[in-house]
């Protein structure tokens, strides 16, 4: 059916099935891909457009309903060529876009409001944006951007040498606020074949495939395990346990079994029950108890006892030390599978180029993808080119392969480009999760409140496949005592296979789970001794000069005590206010809590080098070649800032080439909070290298001032000015590599696992509805020792986004296979759930880091749940032993507590 309507003020027409979703028509047929789709179910709001001036989810509107009406998308916001709307400029200036996948939807939702009301209140903004989810920002900067739309803060471009520490806007920001950034599902050529994956409805089953010929006749190809040259992948070189397509045996619900390849409509038209699979379901193993049971069936035949890994850290004599303690606290804490819920589902496309395969997909780790695809396809790594698209959120979940193997194999064998975009339920069912943990903790201190002994055992459910399980099991014992100086420590971690989804990397690698336990212990010991909870932590905080449980002496940059000092005035004031509020009675009670953390930056006791290059071409183009992927956290901008100051030229003169494995060097993966510290250091060195070359050419001293105009580089050394004609002197290329110095851990976990650690303390104020068990977080104050904030706006953005995820972990998020596989049953915080978050940046410089910087990505999330749970305890006397603390769980615990008191 042919339809006429207005698109962004211009007449448009479209022809197709009228039941087609508006979102699909815009993106697939009308070529306006600024509108994103994250769920196709109304739950995420990424697809928000204006229809006759009103915000609607374009995934819920039939094209048949568009005839004669007016549709506005993000592409229509710009007021002219390169002229952003005030709202877009405000988003840019406030750092309101991180990964940017929610940004077009946010902008359109906000546009409906600001058109009617250019000075909206916070509540009005929240009501307007309530239907758009953002997983990156914690919403604060978005709300500010909308409220400030009429009075934008003037942005300043820093001069040469002044980039580090300045709040320059994201270098990739304009692309994000105009909808021009190309995400995994945005740049797919029109002539591709599509894949639809048929997945297991069972958590544990054997199966046989029937005759696939009839399906093959309807499609271009039907791929099975037999089509995968080497059917096993995994993060660790020696653990390739996850098949691309299951081979007769599935180990979790959502596991890929068959890939249908053909025209898009053809693969979508085939229902799962038309694919001949004879299932023989078996009782699944869920949870560590079932996995550890003596007669438990094995999830993986070669893993006795379903054990993936165990190990720990031992220092001093824990048992003897407990004997002498004045107070001992203990408790067991459980967490659930948690879903990353990035708003961009996994997506990408691949094509064969001669004897090479080229993959355009959303990812956090181009080089690992390259090597893994080469291994799966039995190709040389050089035969694989990874061209990362913009990444609409990762948080660890896009470190594992998703669409890449199937699109690569299909494109390779069929000789045609092939695309795959996960649906939301598919993304949730197939992808990795945060490890459910059971952490048993025992801590003791002396009469002065000095910690003496700590014994922590953490059991992790690693799900069906190893993924990052070993990383979690290794990292947790190093961190499980918390950021405190304790002479006697025993920490232990074990990870077990189950028929749950593969648990992988999720912001913090198990440390957030452990922090819930150690921080509950701190509260309890402090309360027992009648010491203020903050002061208790302050007394025990690791400081420069202290030796950690792994025997590492912290030479520098251990700013926890400073973080606590910064929180103290807020803490005291809030205590008074809360006491006054609670005096008034009523069904609401307030409480305040505090959480501390430390976090080792980079891989645990493993080499994780980054290499960066800065080039100056004969035409005078200054380019940073960065293999560090920006998944929203801001590394594109930070690398430019660091490189700019290292070279001594303004950041705005840089162009950036990022991610493509053919054009950039390996800068490792975007995980473990390592990019600022490790890749940033490499960028600094690369910039310094280029500067050295320039100074040598100009025969100038180290203080020389550079300026670049076209192909002419001027070097001013005192009164002396030399010019270099790059057309004759170029090209120049500076290179830098950095691998943080660590040592392996011995059998007792002794060694130097990380070159540096981030420290943080956060406080949370909550209001508990004691009749309903609901918790409203009223305020978070977050103090983070980041070494040096390369870009304070981006650091704050990381903190606020991490806090929002920590809030979700504490209060609402629980992935249950088959039950919460969409974004209306699986709840993540909305704009109305995340409170005001005040960020206090502590800069205790790390000499190894670029300009003293460490990392912030994961540390932001770790202290939040402990602080919230401590605040709930303060308000109600109930200590949560299981998260998420859903309303019914809290209410039931309160009732039980009342009963036991009576």
């Amino acid at each position: 059916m042919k339809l006429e309507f207005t698109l962004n003020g211009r007449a448009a027409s479209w022809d197709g099935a009228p039941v087609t979703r508006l979102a699909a028509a815009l993106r697939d047929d009308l070529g306006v891909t600024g509108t994103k789709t994250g769920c196709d179910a109304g739950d995420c709001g990424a697809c928000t457009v204006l229809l006759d001036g009103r915000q609607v989810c374009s995934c819920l509107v039939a094209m048949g309903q568009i005839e004669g009406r007016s549709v506005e998308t993000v592409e229509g916001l710009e007021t002219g060529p390169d002229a952003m709307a005030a709202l877009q400029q405000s988003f840019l200036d406030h750092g309101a876009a991180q990964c940017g996948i929610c940004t077009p939807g946010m902008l359109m939702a906000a546009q409906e409001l600001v058109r009617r009301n250019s000075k909206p209140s916070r509540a009005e903004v929240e009501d307007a944006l309530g239907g758009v989810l953002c997983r990156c920002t914690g919403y604060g900067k978005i709300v500010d951007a909308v409220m400030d739309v009429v009075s934008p803060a003037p942005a300043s471009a820093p001069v040469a040498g002044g980039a580090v520490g300045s709040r320059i806007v994201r270098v990739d920001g304009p692309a994000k606020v105009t909808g021009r950034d190309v995400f995994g599902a945005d740049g797919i050529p029109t002539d591709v074949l599509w894949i639809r994956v048929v997945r297991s409805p069972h958590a544990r089953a054997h199966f046989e495939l029937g005759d696939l010929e009839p399906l093959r006749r309807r499609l271009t190809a039907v791929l099975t395990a037999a089509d995968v040259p080497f059917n096993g992948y995994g993060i660790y070189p020696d653990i390739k346990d996850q098949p691309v397509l299951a081979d007769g045996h599935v180990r979790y619900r959502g596991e890929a079994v068959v890939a249908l390849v053909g025209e898009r409509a053809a693969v979508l038209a085939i229902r799962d029950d038309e694919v001949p699979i004879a299932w023989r379901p078996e009782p699944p193993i869920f949870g560590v108890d079932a996995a550890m049971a003596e007669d438990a069936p094995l999830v993986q035949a070669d893993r006795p006892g379903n054990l993936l890994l165990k190990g720990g850290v031992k220092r001093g004599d824990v048992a003897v030390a407990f004997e002498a303690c004045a107070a001992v606290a203990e408790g067991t804490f459980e967490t659930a599978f948690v879903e990353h819920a990035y708003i961009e589902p996994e997506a990408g496309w691949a094509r064969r180029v001669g004897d090479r395969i080229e993959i355009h997909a959303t990812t956090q780790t181009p080089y690992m993808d390259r090597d893994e695809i080469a291994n799966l396809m039995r190709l040389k790594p050089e035969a694989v080119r990874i061209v990362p698209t913009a990444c609409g959120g990762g948080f660890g979940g896009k470190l594992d392969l998703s669409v890449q193997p199937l699109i690569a194999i299909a494109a390779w064998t069929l000789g045609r480009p092939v695309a795959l975009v996960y649906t939301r339920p598919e993304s949730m069912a197939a992808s990795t999760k945060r490890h459910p943990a059971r952490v048993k903790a025992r801590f003791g201190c002396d009469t002065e409140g000095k910690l003496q002994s700590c014994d922590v055992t953490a059991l992790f459910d690693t799900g069906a496949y190893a993924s990052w399980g070993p990383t979690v099991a290794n990292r947790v014992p190093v961190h499980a005592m918390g950021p405190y100086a304790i002479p006697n420590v025993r920490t232990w971690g074990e990870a077990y296979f189950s028929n749950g989804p593969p648990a992988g990397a999720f912001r913090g690698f198990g440390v957030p789970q452990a922090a819930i336990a150690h921080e509950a212990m701190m509260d309890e010991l402090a309360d027992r001794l009648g010491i203020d909870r903050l002061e208790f932590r302050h007394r025990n905080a690791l400081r420069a000069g202290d030796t950690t449980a792994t025997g590492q002496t912290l030479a520098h940059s251990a700013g926890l005590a400073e973080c606590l000092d910064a929180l103290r005035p807020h803490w005291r004031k809030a205590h008074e206010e809360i006491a006054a509020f609670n005096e008034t009675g009523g069904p609401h009670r307030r409480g305040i809590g505090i959480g501390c953390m430390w976090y080792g930056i980079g891989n645990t006791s493993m080499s994780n080098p980054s290499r960066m290059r800065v080039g100056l071409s004969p035409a005078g183009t200054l380019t940073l070649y960065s293999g560090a992927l920006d998944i929203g956290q801001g590394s594109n901008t930070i690398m430019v800032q660091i490189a700019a100051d290292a070279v001594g030229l303004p950041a705005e003169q840089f162009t950036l080439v990022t991610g493509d494995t053919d054009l950039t060097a390996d800068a490792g993966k975007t995980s473990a909070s390592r990019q600022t510290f490790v890749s940033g250091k490499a960028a600094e060195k690369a910039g310094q290298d280029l500067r050295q070359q320039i100074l040598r050419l100009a025969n100038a001293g180290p203080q020389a001032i550079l300026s670049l105009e076209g192909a002419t580089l001027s070097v001013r050394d005192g009164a002396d000015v030399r010019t270099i004609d790059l057309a004759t002197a170029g090209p120049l290329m500076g290179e830098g590599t950095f691998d943080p110095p660590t040592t392996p851990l011995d059998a007792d976990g002794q060694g130097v696992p990380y070159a540096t650690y981030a420290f943080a303390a956060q406080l949370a104020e909550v209001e508990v509805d004691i009749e309903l068990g609901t918790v409203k977080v009223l305020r978070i104050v977050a103090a983070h020792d980041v070494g040096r904030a390369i870009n304070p706006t981006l650091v704050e953005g990381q903190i606020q986004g991490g806090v929002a995820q920590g809030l979700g972990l504490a209060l609402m998020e629980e992935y249950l296979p088959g039950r919460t596989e969409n974004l209306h049953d699986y709840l993540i915080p909305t704009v109305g759930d995340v409170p005001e978050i005040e960020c206090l940046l502590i800069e205790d410089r790390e000499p190894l880091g670029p300009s003293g910087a460490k990392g912030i990505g994961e540390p932001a999330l770790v202290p939040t749940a402990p602080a919230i749970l401590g605040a709930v305890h303060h308000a109600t006397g109930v200590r949560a032993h299981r998260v998420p603390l859903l309303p019914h769980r809290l209410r039931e615990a309160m009732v039980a507590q009342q009963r036991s008191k009576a």
Partner: protein
Amino acid sequence: MGDYLRPRGLEEALQALTRPFTVLAGGTDFYPARVGRAVTEDVLDIAGIAALRGISETEVGWRLGATTTWSELVEAPLPPLFDGLKQAAREVGGRQIQNSGTIAGNVCNASPAADGVPPLLALEAEVELAHRDGTRRLPLASFITGVRRTARQPAELVVALHVPRPRAEARSAFLKLGARRYLVISIAMASVVLEVAEGKVAAARVAVGACSPVAQRLPLLERALIGASFDATLGERAEPSHLAPLSPIDDIRGSAAYRGDAALAVLRRLLSKVAA
């Protein structure tokens, strides 16, 4: 690919329904049920039928056109009788859902957690169904027969909901309990309409949702409210025994015991709120 009809008139739509069609209004329940698969059924899009849209006052009350959206309802000038329904409208999904989702769609979808249903029950709404051969009216309580089941025949369309005018001045309110602020399926919700004469409750209608397969009125509580003075102490009248018609279940959003508890707390607050 199925057929897609978008009639402008009701007659045409009813004529079409002589054969099976899936009705599409705002699409906010329709599309989420069809993620990742081709839509193959024959679709009757009723959103373009002008006669089904909008709110009008009649001699005996109000007519809410079937495809009136939640946002249109909120913006309509209506007496305090409708405050509860309007408050519910503001709690349905986010703004986008309110701008598309329709009142009749909510009722026809017949989710146990449909936020529109308790306020409409408390308003004693009647459902008007049209058929090629005529129309009929059913009380909402008889229209919704179970979880996602209604008394609608395949050849019928819901054309409107009718709200009778109360005898005395009426007040109403709605309260929802969910695990987050926006876009959330209710754990429990309740709505009340009170007719007030001389400072006392002359008539009361209370309904609770998400605590039984179909939202329920609470006749015992309604009776207990009659004659009570219309002030913040109204909440104290609600007793656990009043919840007898409810049959809460355990699910991912809450346990049965918690739901019962919470429903009572929500009711008490609702009653205090309406009189505040």
